């Protein structure tokens, strides 16, 4: 039997802008530490951006790929950050092979528990219900932590034990940068694999028309719960890295403020692209860093940011990335690869 591999002509002909952007970002991230060798402060900033990018991606998995409006991503971020900080303080343990998986597990379990309540109920929850539920979780956690003396109350936890690999201790700098880059790369590739797999196809269908997919027999809520838990895991990893990198974690790191920041990273960069949140995080963090010393603007920076986002939502819903990546490529890539494999 002869089966000819016939990739779609359109797929081959179009310029793969998304891939190009991804490779470009990777290239920039790889060369950055070499260009910035004697600027520790900027390496620290770049490390921070990568750590927060993981956090941004975790929101993108929820909203951009499966239509869960999660306003509580910071909950998983913050709780994991606190967990590793407390383990360092009370058990004097911070070996990388133990704490990072533990942080991911914390995020995973927490997100799963929340998903059971919010998503797996008898009635199908609306987007607003989920948004408010996650927001409430995040807010409640922030209030709880700010009054709890054992975890430092309003002061948060500081002087966090440094992350260790054998006897090596990670402080800000090249090594931590490498660690953050590797973490980002792994999270990114896993997410990329998921959203381009058959599982991802279901997610895409769910996002476009949830009811129709349900009629086809998919248990939509289960898919959502799985994605949400996975995103919680990524946020947990990000929170732990943040905690070790900054040496500080406070109630503000698990509240609605940070949760909303994740939404901003994503909307600015472009939802449903994975690379969008990375670009959005970099744009927002670099701008904040650059503008923080210009008094006249610093005061208004949040307002400016808000206006920019409003304009983006109104006129450029695909975010910054939408300027170079067509909608067709953004959404259609699933279809193309799926058809591709069906033919192959």
């Amino acid at each position, binding site marked *: 039997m002869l089966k000819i591999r016939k990739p779609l002509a359109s797929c081959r002909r179009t310029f793969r802008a998304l891939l190009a952007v991804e490779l470009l970002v990777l290239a920039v991230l790889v060369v950055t530490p070499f260009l910035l060798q004697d600027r520790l402060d900027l390496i620290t900033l770049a490390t921070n951006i990568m750590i927060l990018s993981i956090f941004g991606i975790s929101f993108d998995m929820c909203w951009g790929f499966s239509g869960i409006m999660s306003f509580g991503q910071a909950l998983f971020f913050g709780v994991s950050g606190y967990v590793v900080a407390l383990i360092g303080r009370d058990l004097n343990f911070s070996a990388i092979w133990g704490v990072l998986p533990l942080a991911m597990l914390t995020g995973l379990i927490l997100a799963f528990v929340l998903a059971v309540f919010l998503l797996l109920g008898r009635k199908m929850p609306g987007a607003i219900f989920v948004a408010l539920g996650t927001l409430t979780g995040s807010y409640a956690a922030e209030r709880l932590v700010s009054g709890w003396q054992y975890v430092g109350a*309003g002061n948060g936890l500081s002087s966090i034990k440094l992350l260790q690999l054998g006897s090596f201790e990670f402080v*800000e700098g090249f090594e931590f940068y490498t660690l953050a880059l590797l973490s980002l790369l792994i999270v990114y590739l896993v997410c990329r694999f998921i959203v381009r797999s058959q599982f991802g196809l279901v997610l895409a269908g769910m996002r476009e028309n949830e009811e129709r997919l349900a009629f086809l027999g998919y248990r939509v809520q289960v898919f959502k719960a799985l994605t949400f838990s996975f995103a919680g895991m990524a946020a947990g990893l990000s929170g732990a890295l943040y905690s070790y990198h900054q040496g500080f974690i406070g109630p503000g790191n698990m509240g609605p403020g940070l949760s909303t920041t994740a939404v901003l990273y994503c909307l600015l960069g472009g939802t449903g692209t994975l690379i969008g949140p990375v670009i959005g995080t970099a744009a927002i963090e*670099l701008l904040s860093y650059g503008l923080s010393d210009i008094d006249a603007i610093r005061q208004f920076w949040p307002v400016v940011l808000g206006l920019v986002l409003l304009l983006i939502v109104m006129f450029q819903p695909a975010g910054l990335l939408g300027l170079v990546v067509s909608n067709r490529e953004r959404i259609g890539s699933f279809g193309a690869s799926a058809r591709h494999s069906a033919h192959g």
Partner: protein
Amino acid sequence: MNGTKDALKTLRRGFLSGAGALTAAGWIGGAASGWLLRPGWAHAAGPIKMGIATDITGAIAPSGNADWQVAQFTVEQINKEGGILGRPIELYLEDTASDPKIAVGNVRRLIQERRVDVVLGGITSAMRQAIKDPIVNRGRTLYIYPQLYEGQECTKNLFCTGPTPAQQCDKLIPYLIKTVGKKRFAMPSANYVWPQLLNKYARKVIEANGGEVVFEEYYPLDQPEYSATISKIKDGKVDCVFNTVIPPGLQPFMKQLFESGFQKNGGVLTCVYFDENTLNYLPAPEMEGLYSCLDYFQAVDDPFGKKLQEAYSKRFPGTKYLFTAGAAATGMYRGIKFYEVAVKETKGDLHRDAVAAAMDHAVIENGPGGGAAMVPGHMHCRMNMYTALCRINNEKPYYEVVDKADMVDPREC
């Protein structure tokens, strides 16, 4: 020093071009950050770099700006007299924005980008906790914390120049019990670490002096309603309220306490963070008869302090950011002067261990409210403490110093 004694210039660096490059290229910028106060002359060994990390924006910006102005004022004075051993001090500012989350990032710029020799600043305990690690442990830099606080900060290379609970309570409470004659104390408090640890210490002093604590309660910082507290004060026959409720809960609490007639019936209110800034913060009748205890009041009869205030008002005419104790400004002044003394002793060696070793027993002769002396091995300093009573003249509140204690021990570490 080559005689260019002209006033220092405050320069803004960076600006849009720098920031634009930074954002466009991602790694080129960096010239743009913070404020810089550059002296008018140079020295072969280069300037001494001093970093100030304080709250220029956000909820406690009034105190932060006072600290920044006092830092500028003090450094200008030192530079005008030839700097430290002929080397000028260059001053860098980073805004901690009343938000520890933002501060941990910004304070790193002082350490990693500016490579300052010492950092002074932080006002709230939350802020100190957040920034001490990037400064002292990871940043291997000397840190001086200027605010009155709850004590128990015993990190190596971290020096505290503000009053501790012992300094604020050891004289005030016996004065209230023995001289004013109050016995039954109530402790309404905001729920965070400073009131909790301060109350713990104050309770010991109250009980040791034959007083009694009727209740000790903690409220959310923004609680607007205190009728339950007020009735407890009435029912418990409390005659002295040791208050650590802070704004925004402070205004409703003070109003409700006053309206209950507590003061009219002979009750005494004491509030150890009240300084000249809080005088106009509340209606005068509510302030009348209030006791505070701090390391300095403008009413202190001391020629050096008076001269300092005059020079400060001349440098910042009509400023709303006062040189007071409650805003950590006096601690800031002392911190900079201690550092000056220490560097003189090391003969200009700016290495942290050398300066810290000299800081350990540094003494300053003069300051607002008098001199101060580090207690060797304890990282806190002895200083004069003043108990003041708020009085009203022509509907304007003012403090009258009623008691003074010389060189009170901090009893920390």
